[in-house]
Every structure is written in C-alpha cells, then in structure tokens.
C-alpha cells in the first residue's frame, strides 16, 4: 500500500467538557474515497473541520502527505460544503467564483477563461455557465460548481461534507455521478461524509463508522454492506428504509 495522503493519528477533540472525538485514527491512501458515516453528534463534521484546520485538536496528529497540517497547507485540502444555496456568493458569477479559486489574489475571468472552461467541463457544465449567476442554476448544478471550485486548486484531498443532503433525488444522482467520474478520471482522494448509507455505497471504496466520537468499524465497502461486524453498524443498516415493509405484520393486513 502506498503512503497515505491523509493520516489522522489518535486525534482527540474536546469542546468544554464534551469529548467530541476520542482517539480517532484513520488513513486515506491516494486515489481512494473514504466514506465517513454516523449520526448527528457522532463527530463526523468535527473530524472534517479538524482536517481543514477550523478546529484545534486537544491531542493527536493530522498528517497530510507525511507532514503536519499547517495553515500554509490549507489550499491543499478543499472542502465542498453541504448547502449549495449558501456556498456560492449570490453577487458573483460562476466564472468569477472559479477564477477566484484559481488565483485568489487577482483572479479575473478574462485571464483565466480557459481554465474556468476546463473546470466547468470537468463537472459536465457548459462553458457559457461562467457568465451566469448562481440563482440561475438548480441545486445540483450549483453543487457541481462548488465541486469545480474545489478542483480549481488541484488539491491533494477533497472533503465532501453531506454534499447531497440538501438536494432532491433527481439532482442528487447527477452530483454523485460527477464525483464518481472525477474519482476515476483524476484519481481524486476524497473524504466523503454522509448520514446516508445508500449514497455512501455509491461513492466510496472504504467506509468508517463513527459512533459517539469513536470509530467503531473501518472496512471496505463490500465487507461493510455484506458482513457488518459492529452492532451499531448493523443497527444503522437495519434502520435504512429499503422499500420493504417496515413491520413484518403489515404485509398480511
């Protein structure tokens, strides 16, 4: 196995008296996608924030490509936020938003038109999208713009935090497909956070299950969905409605 891009080692995060993450250790090799699942309050978003440096850990290390993450390394990790309606500046065109990501100091659309067009192409949007404002796009299209913006800096690691939970089913599929094809084409390394196990199954190679700040299971996608080991993982899987009747006695009613 190659050297991991991201290595989280015995990470502890404490908010006041609350121990949010306990001895969390996770490795993410290059080109892989790790799903991070758990319920609200399990600490998945805190882990993401610690990796991008928005939360200060109480102890433990976060290594990016073998080095401790520093503020300078920030651009090498990019985050795709949850809500595509809040993550794009309504007063900037899509082109301006992408040009700013390409060159945060002086990004003008004219200078970077070609690169902006490339980025839009990667997420299957037309180059003419650059001149339009976010309000002219659907939620799925906005989320693809947010993905393109994260790709603009050629990051080593992308963190996708509940990227489809604000979207309708029909547009969720288009965002998941874009992530899948990017993973294949650019061999993206991605930390994919979601509460939706079916979505995680469609995007990730490995899945780590967080429960009350601890990783209770970390295994390949096939194993997790076929033979879950931990009781909590089994409870999670059993709770997912899968179209079959919920209570056995309803069918014979």
């Amino acid at each position, binding site marked *: 196995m190659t050297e991991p891009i991201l290595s989280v080692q015995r990470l502890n995060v404490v908010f006041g008296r609350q121990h949010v993450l306990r001895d969390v250790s996770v490795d993410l090799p290059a080109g892989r996608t790790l799903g991070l699942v758990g319920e609200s309050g399990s600490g998945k978003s805190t882990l993401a924030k610690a990796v991008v440096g928005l939360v200060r850990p109480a102890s433990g290390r976060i290594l990016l490509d073998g080095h401790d993450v520093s503020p300078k390394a920030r*651009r090498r990790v990019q985050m795709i936020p949850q809500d595509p309606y809040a993550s794009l500046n309504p007063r900037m065109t899509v082109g301006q938003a992408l040009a*700013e990501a390409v060159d*945060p100091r002086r990004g003008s659309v004219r200078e970077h038109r070609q690169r902006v067009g490339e980025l839009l192409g990667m997420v299957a949007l037309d180059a003419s999208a650059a001149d339009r404002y976010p309000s002219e796009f659907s939620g799925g299209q906005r989320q693809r713009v947010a993905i393109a913006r994260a790709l603009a800096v050629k990051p080593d690691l992308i963190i996708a935090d509940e990227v489809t939970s604000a979207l309708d089913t*029909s547009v969720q*599929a288009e965002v998941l497909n874009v992530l899948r094809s990017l993973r294949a084409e650019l061999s993206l390394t991605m930390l994919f956070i979601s509460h939706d196990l079916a979505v995680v199954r469609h995007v990730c190679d490995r899945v780590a299950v967080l429960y009350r700040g601890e990783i209770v299971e970390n295994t390949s996608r096939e194993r997790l969905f076929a033979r879950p080991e931990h009781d909590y993982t089994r409870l999670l899987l059993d709770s997912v*409605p899968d179209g079959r009747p919920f*209570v056995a006695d309803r069918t014979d009613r």
Partner: protein
Amino acid sequence: MTRPTPRRLWTPTLIAGLAGMAALIVLAVVAPWIWGDRADQLTQQVHRSASGDHWFGTDALGRDVFARTMVATRLTLVTSLGATAVAAAGGIALGAAIWVSGPRVRELGQRLIDVLISYPSVIFALVVVAVLGPGPGTSVAAIGLASCPAFARLTTNLAASIAGRDFVSTARLLGVSPLRLLRRHILPNIAEPLLVLVSVAFTVSLKALSGLSFLGLGAQPPSYDWGRLLSTGLEGLYTNPAPALGPAAAIVLAGLAGGLVGDGLAAAANPAAPRPRGRRAKIESVLTSRAPAPEALVEVGGLSVRRADGTRLVEDVSFQIRPGEIVGLVGESGSGKSLTAMALARLLPEGLEPEAATLRVDDLDLTGAADRARTATEIGIVYQDPSASFNPTLRLGGQLTEALRVHQGVRRGEANRRAIQRLKAARVSLPERRMRQHPHELSGGMRQRAMIASALLTGPRLIIADEPTTALDVTVQAEVLRSLQAANSGEGTAILLISHDVAVISSMCDRVLVMYAGRLVEELPVADLRAGNARHPYTRALLAATPTLHGPVDEPLPAIHGRPPQPAERPSGCAFAPRCPLAREQCREERPVLLKTGPGGAAACHALAWSAETAGSTQ
C-alpha cells in the same frame, strides 16, 4: 417549500422619493442662475407678507424670501450630502476595519462604538462645533462624524452575519485575503441595508445641519441655507409667517424625499416585507363532474392553490383516502405536495388561495367556512421539524392537551391522563415526567413521537405527516415511522404521509401519489412501486435515480437532467416533457390527463396511449 414571491424594487414609494430627490438636485444646480440676482437684490419693500410678487414675502432688507429659499437649496443640499458622505465613508471604513482586525480589537471596537452610539449625535456635533468654531465646513464635519458610529455598527454586524456563510469560509479556505474578502464577498452582500442607512443619514443630516444653522453655528452671513433663512424668518413669525414657513416647508419636503427613498429601499431589501394579505383561507368551491366516492374517508376533488398574482402552485389535484389507509404523497421540492396537504388541513400560508370542488374528511365538508374546532379534532398534523412545532417556553403537558381542552372541553386532569396514555403508546419513555418538561429537554426523535401522540390525542380520523422524519437520524427515523404505523394499525387512523424519500414511502404506505410541477402525475399501489412497475416516466426516473443498499453500484445512477419548471413558467403541455426521454410533439402541446393503468393505478402520460396503439397495431 414555496419560494418567496419575487421582490419588487420599483414601488410607488421609491419612485416618489427618487423623483423628489432628482427635483432637488436639478433645483440646486439651476436655482442660483435663475433667482441669484433677485435673492440678493435690496429693495424698499421690507417685511412684506406673501403676495403674487413675493410668494414667501420679503425680509428685513427687502429681499425676496422665495428666491432666497430656492438659491439656498444648493448650499443645504451640498452640506447635507457632504455630511452623509463623511458619515458613510468614515463609518463603513471604521466598521470594516473593526471586522477585519483580530478578535480582541474587534471586541474592543464594538464596545467603543456602542458607547459612541449611546451619545445623542447632535450633542456630539455641538461639542465639535464649539471646539472648531462655527461655519459650514465644521458643521458638515461635526454632523458627519457624529453619524459615523451608526454606519460602523451596521457594517460590523452585517459583515459578521455574512462572514458565517459558507461561501465566505470557502473563500478563506482558498486563501483569499481579508481585504479582497471584504470587497468581493462581504460588501456587495450588505450593500442594500447600508443604502437604506445612507438615505436615513441624509434626512438626519439635513435636519441636524438646519438646526445648527438655525442656532447660528452653521452657515455664516453672507452665505445662507434653509436653517439660516428659517432663523431669520422666525423673528416676525406672528406678524408675517410666510418668510419662516417657506424654508420650513422646503426642509420638510426634502426630508420627506430622503425618507421615501429609504422606505422604498428598505421594503425592496427586506425579504420579509409585508406582502399582499390574503383572505383567511375560505376555500372557493368550483364545479366539476367527478363521481363522488362516499365510501372514502377523505375526498379531494379538483384542488388548486393559487398565489395572489394568479400563478397556480397546485393544479386540479384529486384523490381519495379510504379509512385506515396509509397514502404516500411523493415529489420534489416545489412539486406542491405540502401545499396540497396543508390545503386539506386548511393551514395554507397567508396569500395563497385554494379552490376545490370537493374537500371532505368523513362527513366534515372543508370547502366554504368549515367548523374550525371540528377541523382541529378530525385532522391531526405531524410537522417536519419537531423543534419548531412546539413552543419552547411552555411545558409539554399544556401543549399536548391544548386541542383536547380547547376544542373538546375536556377537564385538565382527564386530558393529562389521556395524554400520558398516548405518550406511552407512542413509546415515549417516562411519560409522566415528559409532561412537566420543556420541549428542549427531549431528543429530536422523542419530540417527534410526542408530536405524534399529540396529533392522535383528539382521536382524529386522519393524520397528515409532512416529512415527519426528514430532520432525524436514520435510526431515530425508523422508530418514529414505527410509532406512526402503530397509530395506524392500533386505531385505524388513516395517514397521509408526505415525503421526498421514495424508500420511506414504499416502506410505509399502501398506495402512492406522485406529484410533479403542481400536478398529480401518477397513482399506484405500493406493490407496483416496490416491484418497479411504475408507468409514468417521471416516477420511473425517480426510482432509478434513488441510490439503494442492494442495487448495482458499478455503473452511474441514471440522473434526470434539467429541473422542474418554475410555477409561473409551466408549459401548456406536459410539465415533464423537457426532461422526458420519451417526449414527442404531442407532449409539448397537449396536457395529458390521468388515465387508469390497472387496478388502483392511474398515470398522466401520452406515451401510455402510444404503447397501447403499438400493441394494437402489431396484433
């Protein structure tokens, strides 16, 4: 779920205000050329009152006050705008500087501004003028500086609220510098409220500067502004009021113009600005020729919901619910599913007008002015967000038993006993204690189960559950869905379950209604949904696009490209046609109607007829 109606910028208020301001500016430019000579011309006609020759009379030196008032427009306007500019530029710069600097400086700066704001600005201005000496320049500086703190505070507060938004933190993560962040991300997004404050500051500066001149601290002779003219005119107020009233009216009118611009901008900038008030939802009855279904518990026929501007959000929806049935209503945001259910419960938001041919629950007719107490007892409602549907300041007990006590006149003790029983049935732990607790002391799932218990308390025949588990974790969702199902199998309460989640719907329901762009496009038994036997292309696409725990994972999910049309832009043909792989010319021109597809099934799609034709021609 519904999008806010588009805001109107060009309100009559704003147009009137801007017209007034434009007139003032024109006057300020041309007045000294037209009336300049007359204003300074000394005559023998001193202290004249208003007449055809001298509209505002004359002053002690026989000069025409009307001409002087017109000429003074320029100095008054220039000083007022100057003071406003000083206030806005200084205040916004100060506010932005405070926001950009570190947390300690920010805290200190904000406290300092709080202190400055608590001093009346006119007193502050008087002190400045006293120190620097009277004159138009110093009074502009004084009033401008005195208004700075208001701008600074608004700027920091607004910047702080925008800074919490995702696009700002993303830009930070990209390495965008604070100054650029301010210029490109913060300021453009807070410009509207700042503009409102600018127009307010103009009015305030106008008044304050006139006040200073009136006191002799502003414009010094021989120059004059409205405040100065007012002060001179005031000497003979009782014998000759016109020379005082003229400049006073000018000050009032200019202030009014500024105020109107401010009000107009504020109304346009405020998304919560009052919209046209709708009448209390009295449902209009319309005639249709649909066959009545007396055996059904709930009957909805030809239901439409309109916005005040006539846009139809829900169009001609008809369905029935049998006693004890669980019916699912599935659709994307904006499909009109929640509005349909809320129209049934007579709980539409203000400004939306429903109409229906039939709207009935049991023997309760909901068209026209239905009995509110009976509506509240016959229909129980479970909302999406359990933390928003309880009042956080009241104990649960009182809230749970409210409908029972108010609408059915049950005594408190009895109501409490029944509520505890219900909580137990909904598997809420420690029910006696929960009654004395406040909503925040319960977990989200527990609150939603308490909500279900509360909805069942009046013994309703129908429960409307609007996305009851969307805000909950998956393990909690399973428990809440089980409590709903227990209510159904235990009491025979019919349920209308609204969800965007096909998996939840197909796990829970007997029959499924699919809505798209305000219309019912398919109705099918749940067995068909589970087996993938949907007939409408939209339902089929929705099922295919839903990730599952069992389907294939190695190929991409079939996505539905494009997006549903906005309510005002719905086509005359099939609304799904632009996204539909089967669409032909007919679909774009002609709207399909619901046709029976089998036992318990119906779909609105032209393609069903084509396949029947093809099948017929091959035989």
